[in-house]
């Protein structure tokens, strides 16, 4: 499975309807609503070596079992608050008490001397379109109530070759070019090209398009 994330800052709140309209010729079905949350944390340590990154991102996908991906530089971890199967094995081994907090909560309550929250970007109640070639998720993005732009997430099924996927993404991009949303940022890269990890790569693409 591969993914691509597109973000347009120039879009208007109505662009998502326009996008739906131009996509409607290829639509197979309209699926569930979805949302995501994108938080940026900044390391407060002052004596870091020059040029080292201070930002860490926490991206939560409510439509993917509420999993969160936390990314800093080249490393990422995946956490989730709904993990019954995993949890029972950890609880049996005496590792876990069975009551979980989110990673965000841990950062805010216990590590706030190291990490400060800088930014909170949200996409709520987005649409999911299934076309013959791709699953397209689109949502308007807000930051503290202010409109930020239009975000589109493209996902293909297993077994589609990289080349085919890239072509399908290009088709969507041509559609977007017809719309009046101006420039947009696209990211299809993987954190580790030798080793695809779908959800980590997806989160990485969010970081690339949303973080200016």
């Amino acid at each position: 499975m591969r993914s691509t994330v597109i973000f347009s800052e120039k879009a208007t709140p109505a662009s998502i309807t326009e996008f739906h309209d131009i996509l409607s010729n290829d639509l197979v079905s309209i699926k569930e609503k979805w949302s995501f949350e994108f938080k940026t944390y900044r390391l407060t340590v002052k004596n870091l070596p020059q040029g080292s990154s201070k930002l860490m991102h926490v991206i939560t996908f409510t439509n993917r079992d509420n999993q969160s991906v936390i990314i800093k530089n080249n490393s990422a971890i995946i956490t989730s608050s709904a993990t019954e199967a995993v949890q029972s094995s950890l609880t049996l081994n005496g590792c876990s008490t069975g009551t979980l907090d989110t990673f965000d909560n841990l950062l805010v309550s216990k590590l706030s001397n190291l990490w400060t929250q800088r930014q909170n970007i949200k996409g709520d109640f987005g649409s999911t379109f299934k076309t013959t070639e791709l699953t397209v998720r689109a949502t308007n993005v807000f930051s503290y109530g202010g409109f930020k732009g239009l975000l589109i997430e493209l996902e293909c099924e297993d077994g589609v070759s990289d080349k085919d996927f890239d072509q399908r993404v290009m088709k969507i991009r041509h559609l977007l070019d017809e719309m009046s949303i101006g420039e947009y940022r696209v990211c299809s890269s993987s954190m580790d090209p030798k080793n695809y990890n779908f959800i980590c790569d997806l989160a990485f693409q969010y970081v690339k398009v949303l973080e200016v």
Partner: protein
Amino acid sequence: MVLQLSLVSSIDDDSYDLCVSTLSNLCGNPPIVFGNFTAMLKPNPAFDIEQVNSKNQLVEQSRIKLSKGLPLHEVEPDNAKRDFRILKKYQNDEVEGLDPQIMQDMLYGSRDLDEMEVDGETNKGGSTTQNAWSLSISDIPTAGSGRKVSTQAITETTVLASGGSSPSIISFLSELGYVLDFQLLVLGIKFNMNNGVFLELSKIWRLNDGRTEQITKGGFLVKAFVNVAKSTDIKSINLGTTSLLALQKELSGYVELEIPDRKSMDSRLENKNDI
């Protein structure tokens, strides 16, 4: 955040058999064998870390506890034989049947975890279970002279997997600002007593440069505890306290359950020199 109410004690190696049979009779069930590997991490000493956060609140530096279950089939491949008796062979520094390298590989992610899934029985759930870590930070237990049990708040989250081009859990935590402090290995048995009380008898080793050194030589750590999911749930806290005290009374004269020293339960960084 979970509240853990606890009482501790210890027994010597020779009392183990009798203790197990007494406790089994008391709770009505045989104990479960468990094992875990724990890595304690501390804030990177090279960092100049503020004592206060952006809201000017004092935040003390705490250690992070990272732990996961041990592949017990490496200790005893035969499932039927994996009962409380296997702990009797662990009276020394060596942990027979467990290669300390496994722990290092789990931390640094160089081991092919699928290889470890030989024993289908213990590894149901596939690789997600194998890669998952529990990550927690504990507060110092609540102070006060009138306390009957130790009360400690623990903030915990589960790491399902790690990824990226440097995919080990350790490399992520070093990005988070934490480095390895010390590592422990625990093998023990657990009784599920009545009223939500768990009782553990365990042997603990410290892992150092691939060598293991037993801290509990000559005996076992005994820990009775109750986890309360909500710190505001006074009813459950009182119930848990009552259950623990009932167990304390029941075992009194045999295993003396006591409140652990607050300071030894403190995971803050500054505390290390005091113990």
